[in-house]
């Protein structure tokens, strides 16, 4: 028996602990790179001096511009990666991600309304709270329309409708906006970016991201049981209704808090779990933490990428993630059609 045990497929792969450590090491390297890259052209010595002498010019650049940008790309990336893995676990489907619920679009609508009303500066939590409310409403609406335990196709159709409605409503907000500055602010923000973010944005989002992370990680065991379907999971002692609620609320808080500070960034939630499955296997619980780390890695790398791509104005990160994510999504649709027609067999 022990001979058979030694041949476990994932023992030939990286163990979850080894993968986690490798990803953390890669993140540390990218984090350093992220602090070093930027139009100001600071040298490594300048950046180090920036930490020791906070009032110097490098100190201000590092503290006010590069550090918030790094912290946000790490936390938002991790959140999106985790949300994708959690939804895929809950729905037992590798094509699930927050966008199929229309959540980012609805979060963007909530945030755009706050920007339109000029409330973002008056009350700093208005933006994340409105975005979370938008995300929560869209997911609740999709679940309500599609019905409990609905097939993925029903969910996608309902999510498409809700997302389209939220997009149209956002256009209406832009349309009615009397102030061209507000229009520019909303439009640029919708494209997704970590440019010009401050530690205020970090404080605005990170507490919510931490709460959402705790909720979704707590649900991991339930996702593992759901491998055998809702009924069997129920007889294994999992409260499936509570698991569903925990996931929906967790994803709403996480997506809302992320979209509020970064704008709409797509496909990280879809891509991250797919990148880690070949390394740790398909156990939906074991995928969670590596997906979060991979999400952080992808978004931090993309944020370095947009600073390096030569352009007259900085390429928006949402544009870059979509350009990388859409081909992958199409490839997944083409290779995993079974999940659309009959659900997992």
């Amino acid at each position, binding site marked *: 028996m022990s001979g058979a045990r030694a041949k476990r497929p994932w023992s030939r792969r990286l163990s979850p602990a080894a993968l986690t450590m490798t990803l953390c090491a890669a993140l540390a390297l990218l984090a350093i790179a992220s602090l070093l890259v930027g139009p100001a052209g600071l040298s490594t010595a300048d950046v180090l001096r920036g930490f020791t002498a906070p009032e110097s010019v490098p100190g201000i650049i590092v503290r006010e511009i590069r550090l918030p940008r790094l912290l946000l790309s790490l936390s938002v990336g991790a959140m999106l990666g985790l949300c994708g893995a959690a939804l895929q676990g809950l729905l037992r489907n590798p094509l699930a991600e927050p966008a199929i619920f229309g959540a980012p679009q609805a979060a963007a609508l909530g945030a755009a309304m706050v920007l339109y009303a000029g409330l973002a500066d008056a009350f700093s939590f208005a933006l994340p709270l409105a975005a979370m409310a938008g995300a929560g409403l869209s997911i609740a609406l999709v679940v309500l329309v599609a019905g409990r335990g609905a097939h993925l196709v029903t969910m996608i159709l309902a999510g498409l409708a809700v997302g389209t409605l939220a997009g149209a409503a956002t256009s209406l907000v832009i349309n009615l906006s009397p102030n061209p500055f507000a229009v520019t602010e909303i439009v640029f923000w919708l494209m997704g970016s970590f440019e010009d973010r401050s530690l205020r944005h970090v404080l605005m989002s990170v507490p919510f991201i931490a709460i959402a992370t705790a909720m979704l990680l707590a649900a991991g065991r339930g996702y*593992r049981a759901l491998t055998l379907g809702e009924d069997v999971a129920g007889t294994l002692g999992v409260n499936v209704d509570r698991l569903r609620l925990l996931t929906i609320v967790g994803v709403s808080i996480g997506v809302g808090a992320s979209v509020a500070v970064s704008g709409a960034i797509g496909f990280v939630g879809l891509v991250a779990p797919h990148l880690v499955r070949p390394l740790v296997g398909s156990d939906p619980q074991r995928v969670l933490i590596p997906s979060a780390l991979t999400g952080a890695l992808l978004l931090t790398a993309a944020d370095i990428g947009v600073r390096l791509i030569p352009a007259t104005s900085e390429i928006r990160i949402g544009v870059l993630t979509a350009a990388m994510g859409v081909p992958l999504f199409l490839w997944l649709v083409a290779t995993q059609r079974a999940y659309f027609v009959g659900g997992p067999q």
Partner: protein
Amino acid sequence: MSAPSFLTASRLDVRLGERLVLEDVSASLNPAELITVIGPNGAGKTTFLRALAGLVASTGAITFEGADWRAMDAVARACSLAYLEQRGTIAWPLPVREIVALGRLPFGARKRDRDAVERALDACGLATIADRPATELSGGERARILLARALASDAKILLLDEPVASLDPAWQLNVMEILKAESKAGRCVVAVLHDLSLAMRYADRVLLFASGALLADAAPKDMLADGRIEGVFGVRIEAVQTNGGLVIGASLPPTA
């Protein structure tokens, strides 16, 4: 003195929407007993199992060792009952061993968990494919994986909905032998079967369902003698004792 009650359902009703799909079902299930559940399609067999497993709302009383079964903690219930779903699915390409290990989710002792999983893998002939992704295997192999998942549990009650449905003849017999052995070891095994020969040959007791009601609850011999099966299924039944055991032949009645 009557035996202490184990799992008892009394006056169980299940309503799905407007339709009463299970009506006034009372049955007591005992340890060390292999009970087969038979009946035509749509008779309420699956609903009966789902009601016992707490997967569908029911009215009437369900008690387990004298306590209210529905009021028990979900994990405590999961430790007492393992349920095999009819045509169960496996969503992710996990190795067979990890799927079987899901049966140990409500428990927690690692050494015991490992032993139980290996025993279940061996019993269901899965030891040689224990590291293959479960989703890449045949329907029959997947059915055995899901059965092994239920067997790996320490639960005293096994509720199995069509455990032999997609198995070849040898594995059908093997699985019935496994279930018999499990019941002899003290478990209460309840299995929905469509194969009347297997249902009659292996059972200690047979429950016959029709139109949502429990029509008969009897030992196989008495069940065959009273002729109700023929009426319920609308077929002619012929029971022959062979060297291999009891064989039930069913034929359609001659049309007028």
